[in-house]
């Protein structure tokens, strides 16, 4: 593995200052993505700024009903936190559907938001890849594009899916990402945090240079809501999604009054299906309606050579999740 410098930050401000020095720095939290990719020489840091000693490890219910999560709360801690289990079941389920016990113990909330794509052409260090080497082309579009490649939000520059389960649940819940940078602190709406690949797939998120995620604050849960995460994959554990859905619904007198739908495994970012949500409002759920909503969630999908099956799979993962939640 390449050599790099190491700085241990004691405060977010110190971390940002260390990061803003010369060279190519990265923040080190759990390291489950970063060190994997440094070993593969895909990420090439001159310096790691270790943020593990920052006091960003709290899950705090706020007075306005929201919940503020420190960037260093581990995936395991977040999934098992009583407030999350009770008020955001979909988030707890989504986190536990991802990775392995050991990885969830180490991976952090901020790191999960920042995780990189699993496209083999990105990870192999050789193939043309616009994320790794801007302008070199996308090998996946004409290559093997079955499992970790998207049908929604793709471009002629990149078709890799965003790999996170946690982020799909957060997209459905709604959240603000608080970041601290050289210019101060600001909030970014979660839906605006991850960028579509478009013509610049190497730009993956809305962070400005040196900005550090300090918190993710979840919107207050919808009153009387029920929620669930459904994940379909090649094997039943420790596998990235082929298609997944995070669904939150509120029912009143057998009619749906509020609905949130987000998809994973099919999009180049955690995919919120707003049109599909609208179609549910005021309706009594039956299989005809839920099938139509599933189709609407996948509207605009574009199939590549090996992943066309994800379009019906994405429809079904929404329809089935809605069916079970409204039963």
């Amino acid at each position, binding site marked *: *593995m*390449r*050599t*790099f*410098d*190491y700085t*241990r930050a004691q405060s977010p401000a110190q971390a940002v200052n260390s990061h803003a020095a010369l060279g190519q720095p990265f923040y*080190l939290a*759990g*390291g*489950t993505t970063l*060190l*994997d990719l*440094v*070993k*593969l020489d895909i990420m090439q840091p001159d310096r*790691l700024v*270790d943020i*593990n000693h920052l006091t960003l490890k709290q899950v705090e219910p706020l007075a306005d009903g929201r919940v503020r999560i420190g960037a260093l709360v581990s995936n*395991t801690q977040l999934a*098992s936190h009583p407030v999350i289990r009770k008020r955001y079941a979909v988030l707890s389920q989504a986190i536990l559907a991802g*990775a*392995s*016990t*050991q*990885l969830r*113990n*180490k991976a952090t909330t901020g790191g999960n938001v920042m995780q990189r794509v699993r496209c083999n052409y990105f990870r192999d260090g050789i193939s043309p890849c616009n994320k790794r080497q801007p302008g070199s082309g996308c090998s996946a579009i004409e290559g093997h594009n079955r499992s970790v490649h998207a049908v929604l939000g793709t471009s002629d520059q990149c078709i890799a899916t965003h790999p996170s389960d946690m982020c799909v649940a957060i997209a459905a819940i709604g959240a603000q990402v608080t970041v601290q940078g050289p210019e101060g602190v600001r909030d970014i709406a979660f839906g605006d945090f991850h960028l579509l690949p478009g013509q610049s797939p190497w730009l993956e998120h809305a962070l400005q240079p040196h900005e550090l995620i300090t918190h993710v604050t979840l919107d207050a849960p919808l009153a009387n809501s029920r929620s669930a995460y459904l994940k379909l994959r090649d094997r039943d*554990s*420790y596998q990235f999604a082929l298609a997944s859905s995070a669904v939150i619904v509120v029912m009143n007198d057998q009619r749906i009054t509020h609905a949130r739908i987000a998809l994973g495994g099919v999009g180049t970012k955690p995919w919120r299906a707003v049109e599909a949500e609208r179609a549910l409002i005021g309706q009594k759920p039956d299989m005809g309606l839920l099938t139509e909503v599933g189709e609407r969630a996948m509207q605009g999908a574009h199939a590549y050579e090996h992943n066309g099956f994800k379009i019906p799979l994405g429809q079904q993962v929404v329809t089935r999740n809605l069916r079970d939640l409204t039963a």
Partner: protein
Amino acid sequence: LNGWSAVLAKTAPKLSDYPSELGKDRGGAPLKANPMTKTKDLQAPDDSVTKGISVVTPSRRNFLKFGVSGIAAATVSTWIPESVVAAQAMPQVVDDIDSPKVGEQRIRLTVNGQVHTLNVPANAILLDVLRDRLQLTGTKKGCDHGQCGACTLLVNGVAINSCLSIALQHDGDSITTIEGLCDGDTLHPVQEAFWDHDAYQCGYCTSGQIMSAVAILNDPNIGTDDDSVKEAMSGNICRCGAYKNILAAIQSARGKMRGAV
């Protein structure tokens, strides 16, 4: 000699049985001890390596370190002085007293209850520091990318993949490896259960499986039914496919932890 060593001593081919190329590495250089594991021998005269004077006792550890050809060569041609092999068989773990060199930083790790002070470079991986510096080779390197679980150990009681940590991240941490589970000659209940249930074939993944199992059995957030255990263990891959027996072993150890790690 234990069973494995006896077999090795009888069957190890002589170097002269091979075509001469096999006595060399791929680049044509004569075989020599792996520089990563070589220990400086202050007592042996410098020419002892080439003269060849001693008979090397093969052991499982030496076999793993030097490989088949290494043992074969060592058995007959004595290219490693006996004292060197002895030092490698029972390595001395020496903490760093000197100030860290340029590019290094000092860390303090408590490993299986023993405190170590080490100077490590920033890119030293926790797994490698335990295996190469502290000679705790029970923790295995499998995929080296957090995918197989062979390197699983406990940091402050929590199971992690030690291949995806730099050692500097763990300054001040308390680490438990497979070597830290047994109490003298008394096996940890999970080790005992793996033995009783034949929960392995080749054994390479076993220390990682056991460390994950210990963490799972101590975690009140993980269900006690078979499906919950299987789900929680899915980060530990067993290529021999001993999963059924591993599951049986874990379930049988439940309730026998008696406050063990």
